[in-house]
């Protein structure tokens, strides 16, 4: 296993793409978060029902798309170049190959996620008080010392890693980068879009409970926990189940099929 990890790390380290994509995850997440925070205001005297933590972490909803691309490319690039045959010849235990890829990928995404989430929260902490979200108005300064904020931040980092694993599993199943990216982004964004037009309250709730993104992002909520479709950690659990399912099917197919 250490050799496999080392091999995967070398593969990722020695091409330019992953580094650029990881940088994009950090900058895009932080930038979208900052812009969203910048666009929102709470005028004096108004009642603002805003979860400032969640607002500051909006960028995760966009940054996850880049994470998905990175994770898909980790395996589908090997298929498009034929490298997969060399890999499997060198390491015939295919489950180990996939596990090594998952481990290296998720640690990289975790590292990038920490930076991205920290940047987003910092933007919120710096910008929000100037926009009316002051402690006097009932909005405490964002701080990782607050347990719910810490849970939202750590959960968002885990969320990004789980999105990476879901994408890796999907790409292992379909073996084509374009199709895999289409499927993953469809899975992520279609649930909230479709749930938005379903008028029936319980259907709406169920859709949000099973959607990998809608359920997983429940981890970002710090206020109004009762009105969430699913509790924060259970939501992250739903996403973990999606990721585990995709990896399992992907691993199984990797073993059964010719490369």
């Amino acid at each position, binding site marked *: 296993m250490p050799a496999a990890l080392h091999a995967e790390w070398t593969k990722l380290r020695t091409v330019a793409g992953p580094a650029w994509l990881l940088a994009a995850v950090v900058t895009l997440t932080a930038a979208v978060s900052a812009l*969203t925070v910048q*666009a*929102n*205001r*709470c005028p004096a005297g*108004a*009642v*603002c*029902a*805003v979860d400032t933590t*969640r*607002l500051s972490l*909006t960028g995760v*909803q*966009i940054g996850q*798309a*880049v994470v*998905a*691309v990175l994770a*898909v*490319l980790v395996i*589908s690039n090997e298929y*498009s170049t034929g490298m997969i045959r060399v890999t499997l010849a060198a390491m015939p235990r295919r489950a180990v190959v996939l596990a090594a890829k998952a481990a290296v990928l998720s640690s990289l995404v975790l590292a990038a996620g920490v930076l991205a989430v920290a940047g987003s929260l910092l933007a919120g902490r710096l910008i929000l008080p100037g926009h009316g979200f002051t402690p006097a108005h009932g909005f405490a300064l964002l701080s990782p010392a607050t347990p719910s904020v810490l849970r939202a931040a750590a959960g968002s980092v885990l969320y990004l890693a789980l999105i990476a694993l879901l994408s890796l599993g999907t790409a292992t199943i379909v073996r*084509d*980068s*374009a*199709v*895999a*990216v*289409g499927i993953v*982004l*469809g899975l992520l*964004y*279609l649930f*909230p*879009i*479709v749930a*938005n*037009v*379903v*008028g*029936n*309250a*319980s*259907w709406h709730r169920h859709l949000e409970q099973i959607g990998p993104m809608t359920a997983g992002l429940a981890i970002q909520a710090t206020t109004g926990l009762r009105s969430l479709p699913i509790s924060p950690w259970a939501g992250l659990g739903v996403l973990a189940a999606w990721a585990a399912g995709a990896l399992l099917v992907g691993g199984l197919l990797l073993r059964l099929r010719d490369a």
Partner: protein
Amino acid sequence: MTAPTMTPYRSDAPPGRDGFAQLVRAEWTKFRTVRGWLIGTLIAALVTMGLGWFAGVGGSSSCSTGNGPARSGRSCAPTFTQGPGGEPVTDNFYFVRQPLAGNGSITVRVTSLTGQLPIMNNHLGNPNQQEQFRPGLQPWAKAGLIIKDGTAQGSAYAAIMVTGDHGVRFQSDYTQDTPGLPGAVSAASPRWLRLTRSGDTITGYDSADGTHWTQVGSARLNGLPKVAEAGLFATSPIYQSFTENFGGGSSGSEEPSTATGVFDQVGLSGSWPAGAWTGSYVGSGDYSPGIGSYRQSQGRFTVTGSGDIAPVVSGPSGPGGPVITIANLLIGTFAGLIALIVVATLFITAEYRRGLIRTTLAASPRRGRVLAAKAVVIGSASFVTGLVAAAGAVAVGEQIARSRQFIFPVSWATELRIVVGTAALIAVVAVLALAAGAMVRRSAAGVTLVIAIVVLPYFLAIIAALPDSVADWIVRLTPAAAFAVQQAVPAYPQVEAIYSPAGGYYPLPPWAGLLVLCGWAALALTAAIWLLRRRDA
């Protein structure tokens, strides 16, 4: 020894034709012989239709309206008052009336329009709380004259009125609205109003002094009976207070407001057989309790009312239960788009991956034409797919939804625009994806790029936590502007509402939105052709 003469080889086969048509045929052959692409196209059509049908079913099992009891089955369909054109309308007001037999006219002077607004305690639907009011006037509070086809809700009418903020207006049959004299009404500057009936035609006039009259507008009310109801009215729309509109949810509370108009110098001409005034509230309205009254003393009428005479504009979660528009049935467009974006991107990036691009360009060295031929093929294939999918989603979805939910009725022309517009949207996005694929030459990058500029802006504008002003700009500038082509319910300026992308209202007119997308696609295609010419393949 004589040297053998060598004749160069000439193929007996007739020379193949070249030209753009042949190129299109070659690209079509490539498209139709790759099984994966056909499956992708088929999936695009199926998920578009399937999600549309799902949205049609979406309110069936237990739809509860507000804090009312959960109901099921057919009774879920909300009971909207329907106007003469079949559109859902609000028709609640206080009516001081007399029958008007045949032609005639009524003239009145309005000296004051005041109102009461509810004090919103942010108690969000606590029924135990008593209604409390403060003085204030809704911008579209109305008081004036009306001639109406009976007192049934939703019947035809024409009215001339003073309003809170919008001066004198002549309105008819809920959707029509013509401005008259501007400015607010007061004792110092009263407004004179006149409504005359001649057959089916009602004409409204206004005047600042009672002698110089200006025609504001006229309306033809088809089938107006000989004896119509005419008189004075007052009404004031529901007061809505929105805390902040995050995530497309309308997290606000709504309570009734009232308006009081003071009228004098009432002049009648023509046949008014009753000879006396009757006051009553038109409509009971689950939304505005029948607040209203009138007082008459020495030729002076004080009429107070609450409600509105206007089209209903609410979006998916309108008052009274599950209301959907045809646009809701087309929600699957997104899934279809993603599938077709993948196919369209692969249509060019697969050539790079397999090296086929070198053969293609050797056979047809004029590179711009190759890409143009590809665009024609993928554009037409996507248009046909989109047309089938959109028509199927709307036609079947309407049948499914009809018994369960209320579908905003729209004219067949609007329906056609939405279906054909959706197909065009899908086709142009496919061309955009082809161009993006030709530019970046990598499948994953191309697919992500196009999804990022088409689907994500819609997601950000409609689902995410962006304020409406930012969301408006997103759906003006990005390719997602094209979703304006799916707007089913028009925005009425005479109804105060939040016309935001989240509610299904787009800032651009339908075809202009599509044009924005076409601009992006044209730009991308030009850049792709330029790059294809400039770079080695």
